[in-house]
């Protein structure tokens, strides 16, 4: 075992304790919503513990991704981590800007998506435990294959066997069949590299539990249609994603978390209680939330303007349940979910028409007042679809606000610049 590997394990141990601490603190709150949100910290801590336990016991663990059927690794009982989560989790620790600067010192171009740069940084600096096998995630953008090229050249990760399911471009039936077959190949790879076997009955159970989570997520999302919206940026959307696709995929305690969330929210909606005292503007944040400075920026939006993020890219729910009566349909369902439904992939890969429909439905269903187009610097495809989305908003008669920012790096477009832009925009459309 190398020193660098120790660093990754040490980092996970610190995470485990830190998130357990967040959880304990949250459970002291009298506010049930804080307690529900806090359970996510417990899930993260448990996920870290699963990897650490596997490491200590000398059992294999792998890298998998939210969009390459994590249900399969769960059903095979293989502990898994997601390298790509690193930059998102890093926002909860200090020194994010320093990490980003160091990626520059490593020679990575500043025009490369910060999430990918940071993931590379985590590999090169050995900040993530080294898995026994890697399921690659080479879509939806050009940057993702680059991350995997770096992995193959890494001193500590380079020797790890890797399988990258090949994603077809189009979103039709033939593509689903193709990707379903890729997932079968992926399973064979996992069986070979870890010795675990996939039991289809167990996969069926995981998928059905996962479906229960998705149905509850849909129920919850529909509650966000209420005026005023019961929750803003602080609870819901991205958390639902994290529970169902990262930390509690097909787990009963994830389902219970969703059930609690729905119960609490129904109560709030019935009482007509909103996220803010006086909701004035309902926003659709058409990208990842500004992770790097979310706690500085979002409360300002809510307090200053009564502007509530009612829906966002990760909170969007286009998911359908999977037909578990037939084995092939299970594979196809998982393929569809990973390839067409999961966030970022849904928006960035394939023809833009599908997501125009999402945009239009979201604006109508959630009574959106303003569509915010953050234009994260790494999401190059947003430059290509920008005009189509703006046109769709014009037709709907809903204002469309273009920012252009780095959701991680506060120095790219600073929070103050963004605040200024919002203030002028809201004044311009007569709601500020």
């Amino acid at each position, binding site marked *: 075992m190398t020193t660098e590997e120790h660093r990754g394990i040490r980092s996970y141990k610190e995470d485990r304790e830190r998130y357990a601490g967040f959880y304990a603190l949250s459970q002291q709150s009298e506010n049930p919503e804080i307690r529900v949100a806090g359970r996510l910290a417990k899930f993260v801590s448990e996920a870290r513990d699963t990897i650490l336990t596997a490491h200590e016991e000398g059992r294999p663990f792998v890298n998998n991704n939210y969009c390459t059927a994590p249900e399969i690794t769960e059903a095979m009982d293989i502990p898994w981590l997601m390298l790509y989560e690193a930059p998102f989790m890093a926002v909860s620790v200090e020194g994010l800007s320093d990490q980003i600067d160091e990626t520059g010192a490593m020679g990575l171009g500043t025009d490369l998506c910060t999430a990918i740069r940071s993931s590379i940084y985590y590999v090169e600096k050995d900040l993530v435990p080294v898995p026994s096998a890697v399921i690659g995630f080479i879509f939806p953008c050009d940057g993702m294959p680059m991350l995997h090229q770096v992995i193959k050249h890494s001193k500590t990760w380079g020797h790890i066997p890797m399988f990258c399911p090949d994603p077809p471009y189009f979103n039709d039936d033939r593509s689903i069949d193709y990707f379903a077959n890729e997932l079968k190949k992926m399973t064979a790879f996992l069986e070979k590299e870890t010795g675990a076997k996939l039991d289809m009955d167990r996969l069926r159970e995981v998928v059905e539990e996962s479906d229960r989570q998705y149905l509850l997520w849909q129920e919850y999302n529909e509650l966000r249609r209420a005026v005023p919206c019961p929750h803003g940026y602080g609870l819901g959307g991205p958390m639902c994603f994290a529970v169902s696709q990262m930390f509690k995929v097909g787990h009963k305690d994830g389902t219970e978390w969703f059930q609690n969330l729905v119960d609490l929210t129904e109560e709030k909606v019935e009482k007509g209680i909103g996220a803010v005292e006086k909701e004035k503007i309902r926003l659709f944040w058409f990208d990842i939330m500004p992770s790097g400075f979310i706690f500085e920026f979002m409360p300002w939006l809510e307090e200053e303007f009564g502007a509530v993020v009612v829906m966002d890219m990760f909170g969007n729910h286009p998911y359908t*349940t999977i037909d578990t009566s037939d084995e092939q349909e299970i594979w196809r369902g998982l393929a569809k979910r990973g390839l067409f439904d999961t966030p970022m992939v849904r928006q960035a890969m394939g023809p833009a028409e*599908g997501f125009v429909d999402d945009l239009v*439905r979201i604006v109508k269903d959630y009574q959106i007042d303003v569509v915010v187009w953050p234009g994260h610097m790494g999401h190059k495809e947003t430059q290509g679809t920008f005009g189509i989305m703006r046109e769709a908003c014009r037709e709907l008669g809903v204002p469309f606000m273009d920012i252009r920012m780095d959701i991680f790096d506060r120095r790219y477009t600073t929070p103050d610049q963004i605040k200024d832009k919002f203030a002028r925009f809201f004044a311009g459309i007569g709601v500020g």
Partner: protein
Amino acid sequence: MSEPASRDVDDAPPGQSFDLHIAEVARLVEELGAAGRPTRVWHARGEADALLEKLPMRVGPGAHSGLILRKDVFAELGSPDAGSCPLLLWTRRSELIEDGRITLVGPGLQESEGASLPFGQVVMVGGEALDKGDQSALELKQFVANQIEGYMIRRAPGRLWSRVGREIAGKGFDFEALGAALIAIFKGELPKIRTMQVLFVTSGREDVERLGEIAEEASLIGAELAKEAWRAKGFDPAACSVSHDCGSCSEQQDCDDIREVVLLRRQAKRAAQSAKKAKRAEG
């Protein structure tokens, strides 16, 4: 309803009209009726305002919050377990559509308290002035977000999954009212529509799936029309952004390969559709 002479009408490009699908839907209704499925027909003719006066619920923007809580549900339509199929067909030959006709194949709402019914909804509209630019707007209008009191459309791409509230059901809300509301909304918002009829199928998952086969075929035309509409607005994702001659372009080989693949895929898709259709005709 008169039979269309051919798939293509007026100046619509080949394969870009739904006339044959409209006829297929009519045939399916006849077949289901002949197979003993209970069928009811109502008529809701006249101006949108007049139609709305007779309804037990409010209709129009903001008539509903867009939300019905679980405990307030009278019935669910088109859940993933039960099966669902939304279908929107339009034609310039308005005489193909019997104006105001609302057809229900299967059980009605009032006798379905607590049920989760399969749900097929076909909206067919006719109007000489309709054109491909209306495709997206028409398709979207099927999903009335907050315009019918006590009726909520759930978010599920590719399907129509809805809830009927207990309170509105108590006031007599049924498929006749839903059909009339849809007619009023469509005609009120798109004056180009001259004739319109609505079909609901609740008789079983298999029946809804048969409707799904027609919808699948129609969706190819719908997608093509939507693409054309975007092109007409100046957004062509397939357009070349390199402004020099193809002959001297380093990307030419890639472009040619992509075109070839797209062509092959289209041919394969059409062949699969034809095979499916032939199989159905044999069966």
